[in-house]
């Protein structure tokens, strides 16, 4: 067992982990931050995306000990200080960008990383960026729409429904 220390959602966190413990497991099992989900075992689905030192990372591709000393942000830290949904979360609700909710934390974390680097992405850019996030419920239509809306673009004419 090795002790790891990191900052998670602005607070100091530590724990004793095995070398093989994944960051995703550490967050879920040791810290009880169960908003980070695990949907596959081949780093494909993206349900576990968190931010490590400001970068979107699949928490199942990183060992907990690799995050020693890092600044980690999970879905639990995304809402506004008063608990209301932030602009991306609100856009997902407004545009029905989620159904079962399981992929949603990863989608929101990926979307916020995208919009940080590319504040006004095109539809194609959004779709390309989400290649590492699988959703089985929505057919992506409303996720793409929500992310574009969150970027301040008018999505009313994107597709008839």
């Amino acid at each position, binding site marked *: 067992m090795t002790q790891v220390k990191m900052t998670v959602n602005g607070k100091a966190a530590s724990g004793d982990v095995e070398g093989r413990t994944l960051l995703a497991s550490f967050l*879920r099992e040791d810290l009880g931050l169960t908003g980070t989900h695990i949907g596959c075992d081949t780093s494909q689905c993206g349900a576990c995306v968190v931010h490590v030192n400001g970068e979107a990372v699949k928490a199942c591709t990183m060992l907990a000990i690799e995050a020693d000393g890092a600044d980690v942000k999970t879905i639990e830290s995304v809402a506004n200080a008063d608990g209301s949904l932030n602009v991306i979360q609100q856009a997902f609700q407004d545009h029905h960008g989620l159904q*079962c909710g399981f992929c949603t934390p990863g989608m929101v974390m990926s979307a916020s990383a995208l919009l940080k680097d590319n504040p006004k992405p095109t539809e194609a850019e959004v*779709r390309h960026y989400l290649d590492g996030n699988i959703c*089985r419920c929505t057919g*992506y239509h409303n996720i793409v729409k929500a992310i574009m809306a969150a970027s301040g673009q008018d999505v009313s004419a994107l597709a008839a429904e």
Partner: protein
Amino acid sequence: MPKDGGIGASSKRREDIRFLTGEGNYTDDINLRGQAYVFFLRSDIAHGVLNSVDTSAAESMPGVVKIFTGADFEAVGSIPCGWQVTDKHGEVMQEPRHPVLAHGKVRHVGEPIAAVVAESLAEARDAAEAIVVDITDLPAVINMKDAVKEGAPKVHDDLTSNLCYDWGFVEENKGAVDKAFEEAHHVTTLELVNNRLVANPMEPRVAVGDYARGTGDHTLYTTSQNPHVIRLLMGAFVLGIPEHKLRVVAPDVGGGFGTKIFHYQEEAFCTFAAKACNRPVKWTSSRSEAFMSDAHGRDHVTKIQMALDKDNNFTALRTDTYANMGAYLSTFAPSVPTWLHGTLMAGNYKTPLIYVNVKAVFTNTVPVDAYRGAGRPEATYQLERLVDKCAHELGVDPIALRRQNFIMEFPYATPVAVEYDTGDYVATMDKLEEIADIAGFAARRKESEAKGKLRGFGVNCYIEACGIAPSNLVGQLGARAGLYESATVRVNATGGLVVMTGSHSHGQGHETAFPQVIAEMIGIPEHMIEIVHGDTANSPMGMGTYGSRSLAVGGSAMVRATEKIIAKAKKIASHLLEASEGDIELKDGAFTVAGTDKSVAWGDVTLAAYVPHNYPLEDIEPGLEETAFYDPSNFTYPSGAYACEVELDPETGQVTIERFSAADDFGNIVNPMIVTGQVHGGLAQGIGQALMENCSYDSDGQLLSASYMDYAMPRASDLPFYTVDHSCQTPCTHNPLGVKGCGEAGAIGSPPAVVNAVLDAMRSGGKDVGHIDMPVTPARVWAAMNS
């Protein structure tokens, strides 16, 4: 103007708040004090004699609590099948025993052989590696037609063959159908494969068993679409636990798509092991395990034929299908290729004579059961591909041929034993032609051709049957369960109310849509209404959510219970208003006396029910809580017309979806936003089946597509924005809401449109191959283009 509440409003989903903030409560988020973890050692051999399982070395590994093998479950029941099909000779299907852990033989890759319970999942997995399993390989049967040949190796030695049943429907029509083919002016024949799929809800299955020694109470937390069904199947048939000592909880569930209907071994194991180990036992499926243990879907091999007269009227249809059951019968597996498939073969057409034959076959593969649509996509795909092929053979327009043969009058009794109550197939086709901008296709094709691409247009219609019922009929058809739904409406003293429903929401938005219905009925705000579901301890016996039944059946139960509430509340109001009960009207959350200005608010009536100081105690009981069970008199029949436009790169065979349009008739609609989202998701799964997804076995029974590295899940960049319209509405005539169900339509209605479009694109490039099987991958398209 859009409504801002009640039926017809696109109310935003209240459940989104917890999902968007990471505060959902999925089964894997549940951790019980003192819990141990189980890892299943699964067979890596498809078919073999299980000679021995030596756990001695593993038992002394660190952290091991207890190791179980098939021998520990000899006194335990078989995982039950919930539907018994009777074959064309009047014999019941062959039904093998399905053990919790393999015993005697292994029959598919992924079948659990041993289960290690340990202090941590890592320790359980480590110890499983030290278990020595001795298996003598047997030849595996994978191909269905090989499996039913004389002398084929048998999946189950105690059955007479690998044929589960040979079903004929309607058997009495067979002679007349064959005669119509002899007399036909034209016969179109099509052989096709409906590719095997894996449902892949993003949340893998999880089960947590708990046992309280002090009371003898069992609790199972599980990723289920129907916790009451699991309680009944597992309690009564597998473990012998009566319902009052067994609670099944299905909390937030991350998608189901059918594959979380079924009762699985892992649920029974965790419940059993929690008692045996006297501590909670948790299993969390990895995605790799999910691929080889979740029930798969589809997997039909079909030959279908249409007979037409000289005027291009359909005169008869016959179809022969081999349907893969896998190694064991999953909960509803036998019903899928029969009653959920044969009854839909009329489609939208007035074909007078139909005969359906289905041979269900055991193979050394994972069990196959219902996946989004379940039987109806298989029926729709073969029929709508066939109709397109008819049109091209006859040189007529595929839409015109469809229109010519549409059913025009309702109710309509099909030759495959169902009666469509309502529909308007001309209206949905008209709407489709408008939203798909067929008029603009020629110009778009030119644009594609200018880029060196081929462009194709494909269309199809669909009909589906939702809310399968009534219970007495399905009982005659072999269902071992009723198919009603239940709701208890509990009104609180201050006027808010809670609905405890047997329906289960795993993405469908019941927590938002169901309150819209009651808000409309009573005239109170939606936020005063809460939906409780997913726990057998607090909701009445219900059958759960699948087959697009929640609103049509569960919603109807809720309406019936609310009607009882309103009837009683009117009695109370008539007492408070000192008026005749017959004169009391409920509107906008207040009871009024007709023709007067006397009124009493909803909240005053509910308060009187619980603080009955001024109350007709001699006539009615205090309190305001009612339960209803609703058993529909018929299926509902959503229908529609879909169009797909593809671009095909002749150099690579790559197909891209450029446009997809869906015109659906779902009857009345409670929440248009949710309905549209359901169609989007169905379309993605149907397009996925058509272009990408394929569950593939090699001839030894090794699963080749066992991870997201090998099974092609549709990504955002594989799919377009969809054009979805549900303005054509012919309400269902036999449920109180007039609703039909929308959950499966997209998956049912889209694969034939995609394939028809691909074939159209190929024809425009001078290549008419007649048919191409799904998934229409670049390799297949390129090979067909260059054949």
